[in-house]
Every structure is written in C-alpha cells, then in structure tokens.
C-alpha cells in the first residue's frame, strides 16, 4: 500500500502549531516513523531560533522568494502607514502627560495620591513616564523628593491597562521600571527595606510576563546598584552583564558605556582598582561626551579618583587638568564642589599639603551651606588626614570633636558614632594615625548605604 504523506502545507502548519489536535497527532505519528521524505520538507521549515544567539550579518540582498518578499512588502506598507499615523498622536499624548505632571506637582502631596487614584484623566502612560524620569532626576538633585515622585509613578503604572499602553508587554515594562525606580529612590535615601520591597516587585514583574529588552536592562541596572549597596558584588556584576548583553544586542553603545561605568563602581567597592580603571577607560570610549556630558564627567571623575587612590597622582593631575572645563561647563554647585574635592585629594596625593587643606576647607563649607552634613563630615575627615600628616594634634582633636557632634545631632547610626568615637578618643590621646583616619572615612562611606556594617578599628589605633 502506498504511504500517504502530509502535504508540505500541512507540515508547515504543523511546525507553526496551527492544526487541530487530531491533525497534529496524525502528523506526529507519521514523523515518528522517521519518514525521510517529510524530514526533507521539514528541514526547510525548521526555524533558525536555536542557532547561536550571536550577531549575524544581515544581508539586505538575502534572497527571498518573490512571493514572500511581496507579502512582506504588503505587511510593511500597512504597518508603516499605521505607525506614521500614530506618530502625531503619540506626540500629543506626550504633551498631555507633561501638562498633567505640571498640574500634579502644584498640588499638596496628600492631594496627589487622591487625584491619581480617582481621576481617569491621570490614567496616562506619558504621565507615568514623566514621573519615572522626574523620580530619577530628583534622586540626583533632591533625594528627599525622589521617593514621593517615584511612588506616584507606581500608582499611575498600576492603574494603567494594556490598552492604555499599546499592549501588555509595554505595560509590564512600564510597571517594572516604575517599581525599580521607586526602589532606587529608597536606596539613594538609604531606606534599604523600602528599596528591597519595591525592587522585589520589579523583579517579579520581569519573571511573570514578557518585558521588552530595554525595560529589562533598566531594571537590571537599578537592581545592580542596590546589590552594590548590599555589598553583593557578584550578583551586581551578573546583573550588569545581563544589561550589557542587551545594550550590545540593541546597538546602544552609550548605554553600554554607562553599564561599564556601573561595573567599574562595583570593582571599586571590591577594591579591584585595576579592573575599575580598565572598565572606566572602556566606558569613556563608548559614552558620547556631547550627548551625555554628565555621565562622561562622572566616568572621568571616577578615573581620576582611581588613579590618585592607586598612587598615580601625577597621571590623575594631568587628567584633572583636561577635565576641569567639563566641571565648569556643568556649572552646578555640586559639580563644582566635587571638582574642588578631587583637586584637594590629588593635591594630597602629590604631597601639596597646604593646597589640599585649602580645598578641603572650601568643600566642607560648601557642603554645610547646602545642608549636606554627611559629605561635609567626609570632607572633614580628609582635612583630618592633612592635620595628621602635619602633626597638628590640637586641630585634629577639635575637628574630631566637631565631626562627632554633627553626627550625634543627626541621630546617626550607632556604628558610625562608634567609629567617630574611636577617632575622637585617639585624637585626644594624640594617637590618631593616618591609617585610622582613612579607615573611619572609608567605613562612613560604606555604612551610609549599609547600616548592617560593623566598625572594627585597626589594631594599632586602639
């Protein structure tokens, strides 16, 4: 009896899963016999998705069957027409979102939540985008406001529907980014429990449903920052590697540069200075200084700091000379204070002690004026390094007392106070050494984001 084979069309529909259950079963049964004739047909239908997921050269003139090429053309024509028509509408939505944002921000905080929860008008995707963006910006300039704004973004995101966002994937991505941004806002305010909760929501959103690659990468990046604060460096690097793979896939080199900058921060925290500097150089090659001047400046700043910390203060000095115009161009108070601080640290590295002292004093005053007590205290500790090197024990004692008083007044963490007490006591007994000052300073920087840390003084300074 002649064997009956499924038609090529039926085999194609089988691969695409478009047949009824009995038909699928019948073809499965047939293929199980190892029919070579049908396998030959199937070989042309089987997909390329299991090929190595490396970039492939996409040839524009890759030969397509004429009929297939025409069918693609028809689809492209239809989609392009719809997208062009949507372009103007998206522009209007963006503008509405910005207006709603302005309106919202003029209201008292308590009213904002009420309005977002009750008014349909505020169920707007672009408002959500604007709030996420504003939450990020506030994290850099006014951290105290960042939580409130990011929280509003999650309220809006959680009220949106797939229809509001043009599909479920877009909504999932928006929600994941909103929650991740809230986590980051908690993090920059050193509220780690809140950060953990919000980032857990973001992570579960990534696991539960499809989320577009750029949104996924953004969540990985924010989550990595939190892992760094938790001192889970291996996890942070893993997350950043995932983000880097996505940005490479998407050809987004500047964002890849930012990711390498983040990786460099992880290496710095793990005291791997050589890797830190290598990554910073790679990041600087990728970040566009015209389009991303602030990120470029941060990368340069960190490289100068790393060079100086690793004893290459001359190189640091040379790079600082070339970078100074970027700080001046940024022009804001924080950037200028950070420049002055770095100048002091490089001067100290070059043993230009008096220059360093002047710089640290200016920086301390600057941060005090801005109400940034913590940074002012760190600048004070740099000043303490100067006093130790100059043997100015009386000045050191006074400085240690002042710094401790500032932290006590702000109800700081017990371990921070303990570290400063050790320094104060050593200063009072004229036994404070440079190593102790550096240990206390390093500890305060780490403990700022990790209240679980415990201070253990160097044995020589007890």
């Amino acid at each position, binding site marked *: 009896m002649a064997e009956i084979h499924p038609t090529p069309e039926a085999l194609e529909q089988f691969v695409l899963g478009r047949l009824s259950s009995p038909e699928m079963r019948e073809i499965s049964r047939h293929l199980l016999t*190892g029919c070579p004739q049908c396998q030959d047909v199937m070989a042309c239908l089987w997909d390329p998705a299991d*090929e190595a997921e490396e970039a492939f050269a996409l040839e524009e003139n890759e030969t397509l069957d004429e009929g297939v090429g025409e069918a693609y053309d028809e689809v492209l024509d239809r989609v392009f027409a719809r997208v062009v028509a949507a372009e103007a509408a*998206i522009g209007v939505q963006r503008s509405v979102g910005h207006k709603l944002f302005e309106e919202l921000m003029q209201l008292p905080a308590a009213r904002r939540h009420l309005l977002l929860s009750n008014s349909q008008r505020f169920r707007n995707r672009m408002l959500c985008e604007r709030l996420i963006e504003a939450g990020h910006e506030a994290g850099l300039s006014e951290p105290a406001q960042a939580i409130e704004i990011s929280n509003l973004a999650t309220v809006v995101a959680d009220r949106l529907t797939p229809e509001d966002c043009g599909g479920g994937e877009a909504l999932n991505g928006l929600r994941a980014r909103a929650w991740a941004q809230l986590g980051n806002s908690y993090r920059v305010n050193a509220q780690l429990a809140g950060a953990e909760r919000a980032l857990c929501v973001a992570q579960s959103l990534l696991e539960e449903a499809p989320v577009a690659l750029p949104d996924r990468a953004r969540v990985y990046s924010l989550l990595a920052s939190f892992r760094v604060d938790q001192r889970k460096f291996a996890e942070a690097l893993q997350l950043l590697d995932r983000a880097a793979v996505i940005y490479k896939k998407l050809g987004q080199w500047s964002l890849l540069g930012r990711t390498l900058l983040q990786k460099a921060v992880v290496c710095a925290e793990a005291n791997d200075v050589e890797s830190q500097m290598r990554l910073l150089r790679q990041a600087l090659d990728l970040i566009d200084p015209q389009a991303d001047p602030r990120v470029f400046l941060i990368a340069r700043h960190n490289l100068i700091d790393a060079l100086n910390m690793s004893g290459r203060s001359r190189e640091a000095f040379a790079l600082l000379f070339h970078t100074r115009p970027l700080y001046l161009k940024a022009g804001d108070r924080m950037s200028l204070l950070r420049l002055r601080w770095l100048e002091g640290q490089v001067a100290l590295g070059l043993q230009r002690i008096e220059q360093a002292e002047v710089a640290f004093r200016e920086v301390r005053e600057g941060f005090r004026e801005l109400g940034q007590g913590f940074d002012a205290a760190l600048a004070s500790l740099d000043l303490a390094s100067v006093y130790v090197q100059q043997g100015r024990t009386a000045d050191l004692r006074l400085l240690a007392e002042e710094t401790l008083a500032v932290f006590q007044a702000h109800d700081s963490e017990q371990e921070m106070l303990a570290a400063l007490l050790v320094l104060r006591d050593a200063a009072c007994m004229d036994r404070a050494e440079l190593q102790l000052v550096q240990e206390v300073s390093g500890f305060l920087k780490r403990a700022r984001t990790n209240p679980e840390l415990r201070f253990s003084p160097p044995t020589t300074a007890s």
Partner: protein
Amino acid sequence: MSALDQLQVEASLEGFLRQVRPRLKALFGHFKIPPQDTEDILQQALLALLYRPERVRDPEAWLLGTLRNKCLLYWREKKRKLYESVDTSILERMAEPLAPAQEGADFRKDLESALECLPERCRSLLSLRFELGYEPPEVAERMGYSPASISKVTTRCLDALTRHMVYPTPRGKKARHG
C-alpha cells in the same frame, strides 16, 4: 529629548522607515517568520520605539535588535507549543485502549527507535513518561531531579525528540536556517 524627537532630528519617520525597510525584510526572511505573523511583531516594536522616554541613539540598531529578539521569542513559543503537541499526541496514543494490535505494536516500535537516538538521560526520562506512564513528580523522584526543575528537563527532552522527528542529526548538517 525622546526617541521621537531624535527621529525628527535625524530624519522624518517616513525617511527612517524607508531606510530600514530592506533590513526588516531581510530579518524576517532570515528568521522565516510567516508574513501574516510579522504584522504584530513589527507594529509593537515600532510603537515601542516611538514611545521610548529616553533618546535612542541609533534607532535602526535598536529596532533591529528588538525585532531579532522578538523573532527568537516567536519561535521559542511556537516550539514550546509544538513540543506540547508531540507530547500530547504520544501520551494519547499510548493511552488508547482500542488501537489495533499491529498498529499499536508499530507505534511502540517507532517510539522506541526514536528514543534510542536520544541522549541517555532523555531516553530514560521519556521512557518513564511514555512507556511506563509516570507522572512528572514520579519521574523527578526516580531520576533524582528536583520537582521544580522536572518541567524544564522534560521540555528539553521533548525538544530533542521533536528535533529528531523533524530533523534527525545523522542526516542533519545544519542548514543556514536551522
């Protein structure tokens, strides 16, 4: 500046679409996505590009990277359904009480031959599943897998079986497309 603004700065949206059109066709052709299924994939990706809140430096690379990923996901989903279908077909066939004796024997023989060609772990797992009718938790216990991972392992074995059925390795030097 949004992705939209960026497009407007560099060229009009229409210009961008004209420029990227040949590459889109090549990409869909490369991944063998049926034309009727490209419509949603492409529209979602283009709208996502227009909606992006931040500036997209290289919109073409962004779009092609996004689409490539969507094409991979498309096939991953299709294959998952195909494995499920093959699995169900075999399970149903094995459970048929009234199949003619010769036909039933032939089926079992074909299944055994197919399983023989698979790696040992897959062969054991699928034999337990199809021939002895074990449930996944029982298979996990017998083979020392955690209950949480048995589903993934089973999918991998079904992948191997389906691949063997449609494109067996001894004959199958890999063509460009698969």
